[in-house]
């Protein structure tokens, strides 16, 4: 419990630090959305008018305070370019990216953990070797290239076995769930396989370190086969570490997800961010970046908590640094 409180306090502090970082980073840029919006041959007066309209001429501490209080009320401002509220934009794009991430994670775990176990438990040394090699090579494939290869294999109209759509998201969105999911399968497999290779490596490493542990030896002495002992006892004991790794893999998967979104022409969060950064849409970018980063900080907290639940040994003794 003490740990939980400490971790939450830490999370809030980190959010403040983060908001400051985002704010400062976005203020030192040369040129702002006002000059972009006004066009290249706008008079300085016009730019200044736009700036004051958007509140960009106020002193920085004031801007920061305004932004922060808006965030707390859930008001993230209005995009200067599209005129829509930033919150609704984020919601719209997240409805594509989040399912994609979840699907990728399912693929990653579904591939990574069983194969990782197999890479330790397979009877034939050759099978183990091949699986290990696969794990290393799979982790070395750029997501962009993996996605391309998948399109060339399975993309409708392009691929050798054109069975799945490879471009865009159905106009009907989630009202047509079958089409929506079909559009996400190839991208999810592309990112999921790459992340799965990483998870496979970690699963293998964790299980191998369990191989000569007392717990597994004990289970075998009680009559379990090696396989049973490793899967029943060894895997359970490494669960805490695996959750940590899966959480971090999830965070690092985001680069791949953004690339793959763009490759498959999905209007997700990545496309939104890149677009707004390109437009120097300050209000939108600062809220978007902050919100996404906050999401991952929260993820870190959750992972740490699950880790604590799964590994009761950590709670027994007072924190020792």
């Amino acid at each position: 419990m003490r740990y939980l409180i400490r971790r939450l306090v830490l999370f809030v502090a980190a959010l403040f630090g983060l908001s400051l970082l985002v704010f400062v980073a976005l203020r030192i840029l040369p040129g702002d959305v006002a000059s972009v919006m006004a066009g290249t041959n706008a008079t300085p007066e016009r730019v200044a008018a736009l700036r004051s309209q958007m509140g960009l001429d106020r002193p920085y501490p004031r801007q920061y305070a305004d932004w922060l209080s808006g965030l707390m009320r859930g008001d993230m401002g209005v995009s200067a370019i599209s005129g829509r509220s930033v919150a609704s934009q984020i919601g719209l794009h997240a409805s594509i990216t989040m399912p994609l991430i979840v699907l990728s994670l399912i693929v990653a775990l579904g591939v990574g953990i069983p194969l990782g176990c197999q890479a330790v438990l397979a009877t034939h040394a050759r099978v183990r070797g091949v699986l290990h090699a696969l794990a290393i090579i799979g982790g070395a494939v750029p997501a962009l290239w993996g996605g391309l290869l998948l399109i060339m294999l399975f993309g409708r109209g392009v691929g050798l076995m054109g069975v799945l759509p490879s471009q865009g998201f159905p106009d009907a969105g989630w009202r047509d769930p079958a089409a929506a999911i079909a559009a996400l399968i190839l991208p999810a497999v592309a990112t999921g396989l790459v992340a799965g290779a990483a998870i496979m490596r970690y699963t293998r490493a964790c299980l191998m370190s369990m191989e000569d542990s007392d717990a597994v030896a004990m289970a075998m002495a009680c009559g379990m086969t090696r396989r049973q002992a490793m899967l029943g006892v060894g895997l359970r004991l490494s669960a805490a570490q695996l959750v940590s790794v899966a959480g971090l893999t999830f965070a690092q998967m985001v680069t791949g997800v953004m690339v793959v979104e763009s490759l498959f022409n999905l209007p997700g969060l990545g496309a939104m961010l890149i677009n707004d950064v390109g437009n120097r849409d300050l209000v939108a970018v600062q809220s978007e970046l902050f919100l996404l980063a906050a999401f991952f900080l929260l993820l870190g907290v959750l992972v740490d908590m699950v880790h604590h639940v799964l590994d009761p040994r950590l709670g027994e003794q007072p924190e020792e640094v």
Partner: protein
Amino acid sequence: MEERPGTADRSSAERSGARERAGAERSGVQERSGNIGRPTGTKLRRHTGSPRPSRNGCFGRLPVRVRLGIILRSMWERPGGRFALVIMVLWLAVSVVSLAWTPYPLLFTDGDHAWASPTAAHPLGTDGVGADVLSWLMAGSRTDLAIAVLTVLVSAVIGLALTAAMVSNRRWLATSGVVVVDALIAIPTVLLALLFAVPFGASVAVIVAACGITYGLNMARIVRPTASLAARSAYVEAARASGVGMWRVFFRHIVPSTFPVLAVQLSMSAGTSILAEAGLTYLGVGVPSSVPSWGHSLTTSVRLISVYPLTVLWPGLVVTLVVTALYLLGDAIRDCADPLANPRLRQAAGGRALVRVGSLAGRGAGRVTDAMHDEEAES
């Protein structure tokens, strides 16, 4: 206690097991071994700890050239290490050559032969504007080499600084180190890159900074259990007691004992930075479009994959090969450059081979044979 111990590859658990065993022999402590990498009672740790020979230990007396020769030879004898070495040497050579010579000048375009298949004139074909794919890949190798090297440096500095803070015996420093790492650990590279790219524009520096920070944090978190174990060991206590300075203790006694984890983590940083370069460049926040890089080659080849699938093959293949080699390089360095893992280094240093049998006393019968296998594998 560490909150998230040993997320490192198999390195930390496996190697520090061996390390601890060796430590038990040397200090005469007959403790059960193989417990590092998992949280255990602190009692055990106080007695064991990793025994890195310090100043005149088995490593210090060996001339650098001899040491390097042994390490390289050991690496060469492993299939993975050999593959890694060959690719690394090729990469380096191509990078250097590309500074002076590429088959075609980079800005040369052969408009009549855009999207050409491989021919004698263009061994890997040409891209959409008729530029030679091979030339661009060759030139790209130096950019990616620079990115990998710089990322390793930056992440090593950040990671070691954080580690130093976390294992320092000043409580506030240690706590704030842990706080920083825990709070920021899950930030994705791409968000940082976007954040930096807004004010500074797309550049190599943005990639290096974003990768360096995230991998440095990651490294600190993974190295920490091993490092704090070393920091609490008897030999560090002895060094501190005899008046050795803070930094000297850290670099001479603590860092070397984390070597196996460090080697793997840094090589992962190098490999992942190349993958990140490809992704970020594609997203427009990486290498600017005038600079050749593998990510750039991949990006330009993407546009017309349906018509010219062959062009996209090469850059992806190059990246996959090099990143695989980097991953394997870390494993090979860990196994070959660590005197506790590589018996040849110990023998060369004066026959101070560690006798392992002593540690068998406290082990279960089932594991005696394992240890014997270890011995055979090493001798």
